């Protein structure tokens, strides 16, 4: 069996044309992750450019309102570009530059990863092309404008369901066309090895900070850590340094869309099964013949039929739990956090907030929940207004 396995999951199921590219990437990553100069540069970018460390905020009014566990919010929404995506992108684009690449390509769903990649490319003087499902370019028109403003070329993908999975497929196709000068900045903990490991390592800064910040504020570990899961990068980043602390519950919140008993869902662990797609073995929403299912969520960033292989593994061994949150619950939570704490979360992150609203009242007041707010919700305001029947456009 190949490298890059998490239990039975992971691997490198990609065309031969790309094999030397991923092997070269793995070699470069293994070199630079131990390189003090690389790490110094990356830390400086994360701190001075992206605004790390992000805050761990005690959500007092939410805690009081729910009447159970104390709730802390890990504020990845306060990062430059407004989401956790920048953590991974700064690492990968810096790595690509060290490897001598001059051009980066990326897929994007909600547009956050595309904006982050376009930002890092502008900062480091690299060419940038972003592939985005046509449906998503319409749902997230503002992010398309931002990417273009930052100097990136945005390609609207019209194949398949014209959403995130098709954007990933098209970016992979583009990479096989042009490899020598190009790095594929994969946006989540998915795809062929070494991407799930590289992206996890760059996102693990989230849990490293949570651990230190909560130790300072409360002198102890949290009882539960919650994060939304599409591919699962902010979730694995939030979980990673707690995996060895078995008393900390790790809870990933998947997008149930209109419900896990309907066809309009993107909750992979709840409704999918083992498969091989987009370079990895993991769980996927699919039919009895292995055709990938068209999935649905109000959130463009969670609208993906698979999940990263490390999540599939954490689920298999029972270390992490995965719950499904509907569109309606997520929109309620979007409005709830806005009114209660004055924080407008990304609709993706609102899935985790929604589950915290169920979980906290069932826990005692001396327990602690940390919820990662993976991004800010400005991008979603017009879509949520439309969901509630208000016809506004940004």
């Amino acid at each position: 069996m190949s490298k890059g396995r998490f239990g039975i999951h992971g691997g490198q199921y990609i065309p031969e044309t790309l094999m030397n590219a991923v092997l070269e990437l793995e070699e470069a990553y293994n070199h630079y992750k131990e390189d003090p100069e690389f790490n110094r540069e990356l830390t400086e970018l994360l701190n001075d450019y992206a605004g790390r460390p992000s805050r761990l905020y005690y959500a007092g009014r939410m805690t009081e309102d729910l009447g159970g566990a104390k709730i802390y919010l890990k504020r990845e929404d306060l990062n430059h570009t407004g989401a956790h995506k920048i953590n991974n992108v700064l690492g990968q684009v810096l790595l690509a530059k060290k490897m001598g690449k001059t051009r980066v390509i990326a897929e994007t769903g909600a547009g956050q990863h595309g904006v982050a990649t376009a930002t890092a490319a502008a900062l480091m003087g690299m060419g940038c092309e972003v592939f985005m499902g046509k449906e998503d370019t319409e749902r997230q028109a503002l992010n398309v404008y931002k990417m273009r403003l930052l100097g990136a070329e945005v390609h609207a993908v019209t194949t398949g369901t014209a959403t995130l999975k098709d954007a990933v497929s098209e970016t992979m196709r583009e990479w096989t066309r042009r490899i020598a000068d190009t790095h594929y900045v994969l946006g989540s903990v998915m795809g062929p090895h070494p991407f799930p490991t590289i992206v996890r390592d760059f996102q693990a800064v989230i849990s490293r900070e949570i651990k230190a910040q909560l130790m300072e504020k409360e002198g102890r570990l949290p009882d539960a850590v919650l994060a939304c899961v599409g591919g699962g990068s902010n979730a694995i980043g939030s979980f990673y340094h707690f995996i060895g602390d078995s008393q900390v519950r790790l809870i990933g919140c998947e997008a149930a869309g209109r419900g896990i008993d309907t066809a309009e869902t993107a909750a992979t662990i709840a409704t999918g099964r083992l498969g091989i797609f987009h370079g990895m073995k993991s769980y996927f929403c699919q039919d009895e013949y292995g055709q990938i299912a068209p999935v649905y969520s109000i959130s463009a960033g969670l609208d993906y039929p698979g999940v990263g292989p490390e999540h599939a593994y954490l689920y298999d061994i029972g270390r992490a739990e995965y719950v499904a949150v509907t569109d309606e619950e997520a929109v309620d939570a979007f409005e709830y956090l806005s009114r209660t704490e004055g924080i407008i979360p990304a609709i993706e992150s609102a899935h985790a907030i929604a589950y915290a609203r169920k979980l906290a009242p069932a826990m005692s007041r001396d327990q602690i929940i940390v919820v990662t707010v993976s991004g800010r919700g400005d991008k979603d305001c017009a879509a949520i207004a439309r969901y509630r029947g208000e016809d506004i456009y940004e």
Partner: protein
Amino acid sequence: MNRRIEEAFARGKAFIPFITCGDPSLETTEQLVYACQEAGADLIELGIPFSDPTAEGPVIQAANMRALSGGVTTDRIFEMVERIRTKTEIPLVFMTYANVVFSYHEGLGGQKTDAGTERFIERAARAGIDGLILPDVPFEEKEEFASACRKYGLDLISLIAPTSKERIARIAREAEGFVYCVSSLGVTGMRSEITTDISGMVELVKREKDIPCAVGFGISTPDQAREMAAKSDGAIVGSAIVKLCGTYGRGCVPEVREYVRRMKEAVREAERG
């Protein structure tokens, strides 16, 4: 090595057409197989459509979508192959994606087993299929498919690409049936020119193993087929044929027959040197 595949190359340089099953219908696909054989095809690649074919260009992607929306399933394709096998011994190889094999007939609802691969390959062998090409399964991942293929007498065809370089020797040593030489970077589709050093790739293979090498990706004209076949043991053509199917629909059979006849003639010219 699978007997029919061995014979396909024993007769000389091979012409290998690719057809997407069920585009526009399985009845048409069956007629296309007979037409290709009459026109001189030595081996036929049958594409099982996949919802997300990441190695395909726009022409074959569109054919996959047409076939799937027409209701084609893997089971109906197996039944078609059984019908074909009562009439002809032409070597038939499936080309599809890992998940179509791996997830064949797995129960829905969170089932976590991976018995689909053996179930698929056993069924394919019973239907009369001779080999399997999986463009998203590289050397490092082939064993979970190769072991079932060996058990049921199918050849798992290995691919090499212009980027493979030092990997070619390792791939060639374990290759079975024939080696699929990917002519160019990128996805499937017609190209105006092929700039890769095909002779160099073929030479690296033959240095390790006496196995036929067929060149695919980008070939559409008789000139290209002649040139590629001259440097190897055969030429594979997909998108140009699939495009005829897309253009002519159910009326594509005579068009494809005539096209294959011209391409096979070009390959024969390469044989004569």
